[in-house]
């Protein structure tokens, strides 16, 4: 029988007397490892390509000089001695050379914290740990400086052995390209950017260099507890609580202090042990002294309801106050402490009263994409089966509702068609309206890596974000012109004959209509609308159309427009007409924002859908759930987030239950939200902190933080992973799923579960996509849905290889005409305001602004302006400006940024003292009902100079 293996050229060599046969090109180190022979290394790590600079792995391969085993390929007939007396003698000398300049062992930054200094281990092996204290030791060199400028990483150049591991970690793993060597010879050292202090450099504090460093040169600074050796800490394997990338990590928990000492990335098919600044350093928010620990009931004197703090009343001055967030001293006096029974009874009583008086549809609930699948499932079940209404929604409405609308319409499924790491199989990738380096940092590391390995990266965005620096083609389109741009690209794909006719004929409908519409979008016209060179559109079309495999990733830049659904329709059509679906390296991937936005949607936290996207107005689906839950259900699709706010103003909605949502800061046109929340008859807020929204609450329930509970979370890839408790809850705080059950009991819905796993099993039973998944088969790194065989398979990466889950099995191509944004700039409001997130912060900042490190790195609200625009406005870097729209105004610090387009500005929406959403437009997309966060008209002027 012929074998392919026979074609692989091999070489045979002898290592320490053992004959070893390996494929040609294998390094001596790998061959030795195969033979069970350990060779000491310092600069090598199998995750990186070798550099051979520490020379610790030298072996005698019969040449005049020794060879570094990590980088030297095996030759046929080679005789290798890995541990001869001479080889060991040289290793000892090399260790002495390094130890001579190291800090004393008792002061070593690594040995005194995690106690795993790899150089010390070698020094002990060679008996030279005390080189510096030995009278005939080698002379110590000129002391090198320490750099304490980073908030999270301590740099000690004297402990650096120049192994280049941090350089490769920064470049090759995270692709951030910050660290290099500076100087030459004995004066060389590592440097950040132009030899800047680390904290002032372009370092994004991902901590990959710390994870890579074998010595005390780069170590984590303590966040909330001292960093101690692993053996003294408890290891909890969990998942990062922040974004949809869902990085697997391990918390090292100091049980005595009930604090996390530090976090490390964990191997997973997803993040491959990588983390970003939030995952690695943003875990201390749960220990904030501001945690809610007792149920609270609004005092009688605090009625009629209204905002309690100056910021929420809109009287903030944009300047940071001590503490930054909700001023407890301003807000707490309006509440009194209550027992759980009193608070829960009040909730039950009020909910029943509103339902009895005004009907079930006068009630509504906002769940959260920060909560687990189990919590989301129970919450929507409570609202539907307990309250009796479909008025249940969550923040997906504010992020990907339009994407999901377009996806469900076009291909019958709202989930990603493939994983983010599948970009490695793509010839071309388009990143459309996604600031991935800030919002999905670990996913972006895979994008940048793919680009380095040959994938053509096309970035289309009005802002030149960091990922644009890695793009082969960067199209800096005008805000709100996506439809015109992609129609132009499709026009060219068609004109250049790059349509996959066979695929179009077999698996799509509506091609003719699409072709007719895009015929009117020649690159000249599309380019004029989008503000880009027509040639650029032709290049994109050619690169995309000629690619064997093309993939599109998109974010809020696509979805958060009044044309968000149309934007996504264009991307779907672009993929479909070129046959870029259903194969490795192809597909559609709307990058999910929240850690569980996919799961919360899957679990039915959507007003028109039961779990797994089964429509509430479909009688068959209604029957299914009535049977499963044992109660009659409303066939009327509920209201969305933005519609509920509107309905509160008109008193159509009177009572609300908010679980972990803070619409005051996250929703558009905050002034309107303020009026709506004030108008509610009853509001119960369940959260871990007093949020801006809680100022309007009648009852506040102290919940459990992510770090204190068990639950499954579904990431942007459809990977279902288990989050595990690392910490004890404070005070009387309770687990969220149990609070939901308590409220359910009080509104007459009896639900009984023993554990989150129990809830998960019920959800899986009614959500066919999750079939076969169970807590006990999710494994260490979770499983993708769908998954026919979780015991043996990671799950299905690429969907739609054999058609689409639509009625006819075909993708529906939906042509879209370009429409301008709702509120265009004019003489009075000449600038376009774009909003979004910063790398360091999460949404309304309730977690990240209470994280010591994240808050320290990004402490202030700033408006990002092109330096020339700023100059014309007379605004220097660091000056204060007033930014005003037709809906409100804020005072905010100015930051010059070459990444903005002229005529546009950017404000992150995390900061209550300068809330971007006071300015944004609440006009919504007609299909996805998503507001236009990415576009409104503002004016900018210097703030009057007053004492800060």
């Amino acid at each position, binding site marked *: 029988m012929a074998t392919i293996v026979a074609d692989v050229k091999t070489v045979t060599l002898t290592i320490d007397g053992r004959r070893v046969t390996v494929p040609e090109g294998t390094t001596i180190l790998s061959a030795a490892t195969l033979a069970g022979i350990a060779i000491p290394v310092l600069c090598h790590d199998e995750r990186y390509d070798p*550099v051979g600079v520490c020379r610790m792995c030298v072996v005698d391969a019969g040449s005049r000089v020794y060879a570094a085993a990590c980088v030297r390929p095996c030759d046929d007939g080679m005789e290798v001695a890995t541990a001869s007396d001479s080889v060991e003698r040289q290793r000892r000398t090399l260790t002495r*050379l390094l130890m001579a300049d190291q800090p004393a062992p008792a002061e070593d930054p690594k040995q005194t914290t995690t106690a795993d200094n790899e150089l010390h281990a070698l020094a002990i092996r060679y008996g030279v740990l005390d080189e510096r204290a030995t009278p005939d030791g080698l002379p110590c060199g000129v002391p090198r400086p320490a750099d304490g400028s980073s908030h999270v990483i301590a740099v000690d150049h004297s402990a650096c052995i120049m192994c280049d591991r941090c*350089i490769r970690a920064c470049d090759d793993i995270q692709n951030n390209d910050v660290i290099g060597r500076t100087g030459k*010879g004995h004066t060389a050292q590592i440097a950040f*950017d132009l030899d800047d202090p680390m904290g002032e450099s372009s370092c994004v504090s991902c901590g990959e260099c710390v994870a890579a460093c074998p010595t005390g040169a780069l170590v984590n600074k303590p966040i909330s507890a001292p960093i101690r050796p692993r053996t003294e800490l408890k290891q909890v394997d969990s998942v990062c609580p922040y974004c949809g990338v869902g990085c697997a990590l391990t918390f090292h928990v100091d049980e005595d202090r009930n604090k996390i000492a530090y976090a490390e990335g964990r191997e997973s098919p997803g993040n491959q042990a990588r983390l970003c600044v939030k995952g690695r350093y943003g875990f201390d928010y749960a220990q904030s002294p501001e945690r809610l620990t007792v149920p609270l009931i609004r005092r009688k004197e605090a009625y009629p309801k209204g905002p309690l703090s100056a910021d929420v009343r809109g009287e903030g001055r944009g300047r940071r106050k001590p503490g930054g967030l909700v001023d407890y001293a301003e807000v707490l006096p309006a509440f009194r402490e209550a027992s759980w029974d009193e608070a829960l009874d009040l909730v039950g009583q009020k909910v029943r009263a509103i339902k009895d008086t005004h009907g079930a549809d006068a009630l509504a609930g906002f769940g959260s994409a920060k909560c687990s699948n189990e919590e989301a499932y129970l919450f929507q079940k409570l609202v539907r089966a307990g309250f009796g209404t479909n008025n249940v929604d969550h923040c997906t409405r504010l992020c990907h509702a339009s994407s999901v609308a377009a996806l469900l319409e076009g291909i019958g499924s709202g989930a990603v068609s493939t994983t983010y790491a599948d970009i490695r199989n793509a010839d071309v990738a388009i990143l459309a309206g996604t600031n991935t380096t800030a919002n999905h940092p670990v996913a972006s590391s895979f994008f940048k890596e793919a680009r380095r390995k040959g994938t053509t990266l096309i970035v289309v965005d009005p802002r030149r974000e960091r990922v644009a620096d890695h793009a082969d083609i960067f199209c800096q389109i005008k805000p709100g012109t996506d439809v015109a741009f992609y129609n132009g690209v499709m026009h060219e794909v068609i004109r250049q004959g790059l349509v996959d006719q066979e695929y179009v004929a077999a698996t799509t409908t509506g091609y003719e209509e699409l072709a007719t519409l895009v015929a009117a979008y020649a690159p000249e016209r599309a380019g004029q609308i989008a503000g880009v060179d027509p040639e650029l559109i032709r290049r994109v079309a050619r690169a995309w159309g000629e690619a064997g495999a093309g993939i599109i990733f998109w974010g809020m830049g696509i979805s958060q427009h009044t044309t968000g659904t149309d934007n996504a329709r264009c991307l779907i059509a672009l993929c479909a007409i070129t046959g870029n679906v259903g194969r490795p390296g192809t597909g559609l991937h709307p990058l999910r924002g929240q850690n569980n936005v996919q799961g919360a949607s899957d679990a039915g936290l959507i007003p028109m859908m039961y779990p797994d996207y089964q429509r509430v107005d479909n009688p068959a689906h209604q029957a299914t759930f009535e049977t499963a839950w044992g109660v009659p259900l409303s066939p009327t699709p509920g209201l969305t987030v933005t519609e509920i706010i509107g309905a509160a103003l008109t008193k159509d909605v009177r009572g609300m239950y908010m679980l972990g949502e803070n619409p005051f800061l996250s929703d558009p046109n905050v002034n309107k939200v303020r009026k709506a929340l004030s108008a509610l008859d009853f509001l119960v807020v369940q959260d871990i902190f007093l949020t801006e929204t809680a100022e309007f609450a009648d009852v506040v329930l102290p919940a459990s933080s992510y770090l204190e509970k068990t639950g499954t979370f579904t990431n942007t890839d459809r990977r279902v992973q288990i989050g595990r408790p690392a910490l004890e809850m404070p005070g009387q705080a309770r687990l969220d799923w149990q609070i939901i059950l308590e409220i359910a009991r009080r509104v007459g819905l009896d639900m009984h579960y023993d554990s989150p796993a129990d809830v998960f099993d019920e959800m899986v039973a009614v959500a066919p996509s999750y079939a076969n998944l169970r807590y006990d088969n999710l494994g260490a790194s979770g499983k993708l849905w769908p998954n026919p065989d979780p015991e043996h398979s990671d799950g299905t990466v690429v969907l739609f290889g054999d058609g689409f889950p639509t009625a006819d099995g075909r993708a529906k191509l939906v042509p879209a005409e370009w429409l301008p944004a709702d509120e265009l700039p004019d003489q009075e409001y000449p600038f376009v305001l774009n909003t979004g997130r910063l790398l360091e912060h999460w949404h309304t900042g309730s977690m990240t602004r209470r994280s010591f490190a994240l808050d320290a790195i990004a402490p202030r609200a700033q408006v990002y302006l092109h330096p020339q625009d700023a100059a014309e406005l007379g605004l220097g870097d660091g000056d204060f400006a007033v930014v005003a729209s037709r809906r409100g105004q804020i005072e905010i610090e100015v930051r010059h940024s070459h990444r903005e387009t002229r005529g546009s500005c950017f404000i992150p929406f995390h900061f209550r003292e300068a809330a971007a959403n006071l300015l944004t437009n609440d006009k919504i997309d007609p299909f996805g009902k998503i507001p236009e966060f990415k576009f409104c008209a503002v004016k900018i002027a210097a703030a009057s100079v007053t004492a800060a």
Partner: protein
Amino acid sequence: VSAGVEARAGRFAGPSLIPELVAIQAAHGWLPREELEALAIRTKRPLYEIQGLISFYPHFATEPPKPVKVAVCRDLSCWLRGGDAQMRTIAARYQADDDIDLHQVSCLGRCDIAPAAMVNARACAAVNVEGLVKRVRSKPLDHGVAGTGRRWPNDPYEDRADRYASLRAALGGELSGDAIVATLEESGLRGMGGAGFPTGRKWRLVAAEPSETKYVICNADESEVGTFKDREILADQPHLVLEGLLLGMVVTGAREGWLFIRHEYGPEADAFRAELERARGLGLVGTDVLGTGRDLLVDVFVSPGGYILGEETALLECMEGHRGEPRNKPPYPGTYGLWGKPTLMNNVETLADIPVILRRGAAWWQAQGTNGCAGLKFIGVSGNVEKPGVYCVPLGTSIRDLIATAGGPLDGKETAAVQPGGASSNFLGQADLDTPLDFTALTDAGSMLGSGAVIVMTEGTDLLAAATNVLRFFRNESCGKCVPCRAGTDKAVTILEAVLASGGGIADVDGSIAELEEAMRLTSICGLGQVALGPVMSVIKLARSDGAG
């Protein structure tokens, strides 16, 4: 990345940033931060890559320069001629002068006028610094003009019109690549840069590589202490160097050839460029040379500075726009060279020898040697001799005879020791002075022919101080890539300077130097670290054998 090819570790794909940096420096006189940041944005390259380059190459300045820059050589050939005292004199003269940036530098390749110095771009004897400083204050000073006007015995072309005869024959098909390689092999020519690899074999290996793209590089980065022969060859016989380079391109099938030259050799680069233009005028350089349809494109790459770039893989890294850190080998440049393509790299003298051998024949070449050796050899003689300079002598001439040719030891003293092959060669004592200057004989004597530089030390020279001076050169010029060289040279300098400062001698050198020498020799990535402590060990050995004898 296939095994054996290292990680990029900070080396970015894409065009070299060095020309952009050179342009910024030319425009501003230095590298302002804003310009560097703008460059990073424009080229989408990380700031740290720029920092890595500008901190590695001495050509780049990150502060505005002073109007006058005075550099005084501190290395062995100059040290032997009173360099330290000259430096002190100049420093005292200008200590209050804010317009002058005075510093010591590594060997300038002007050991014939030692102690040597530079005033701005002009090389000079240190004694002439004051005069040049005066001049430069009134009008700009260029780097001067190369050439001694000497006619050398090797040149096969009596008549200028005959030049490039072998190249024409090769292009015309009368002289095949195989025949050229065969002649080179027959001649026994070996590389004149230091390693002595057989030239014919190198050419054959590169010619046999299947790659469509290949490069030929003439290594004119002559920077080893005491070495300056290539400078004079380039100055006086650029036509031979260029013909050798073009022949290499024809034989290996390369379209692009480069002269990589140290930046202090401005006049010599001019001479080569002028010759390049002459050859272009003759239709021998450029596209479609002599109507053969073949392109022979040649350009000059001026080194941004540093001895280490003479190491062939460091040179390649520099040309690719990276820090000049030698690669782990194998692979060697012949298979994996510039931009990963097969690359033929030869020293200036080696290339200049090739038209000589092809024109005059392998037998003639062999007959030029003496003491059983083949060919002619250019050797720079410096240090304590009456007439330092470059001499073209039969290979195999004894050290003693060469010193006599150079006017004999300075001031009629006895020769105490020599370094027969540049800074990295082991010292030989009086007992070895009759050793022929030849690859084998010098190796047998415990040293090497090396870079064609004989440094002479007369009686009274503190050999430990001399060897420490050499070690300090290696410490200063180490790229710092690998641990043994980076840390080893530094520790060894510290140890030996302490011995010298305390008035100690060879007897006071403890075992740590031998331990470091062994580790550096066996584990360093490149020759610099491998030999850095060799000269020190050789003076220790000389002293011990003298003591024993």
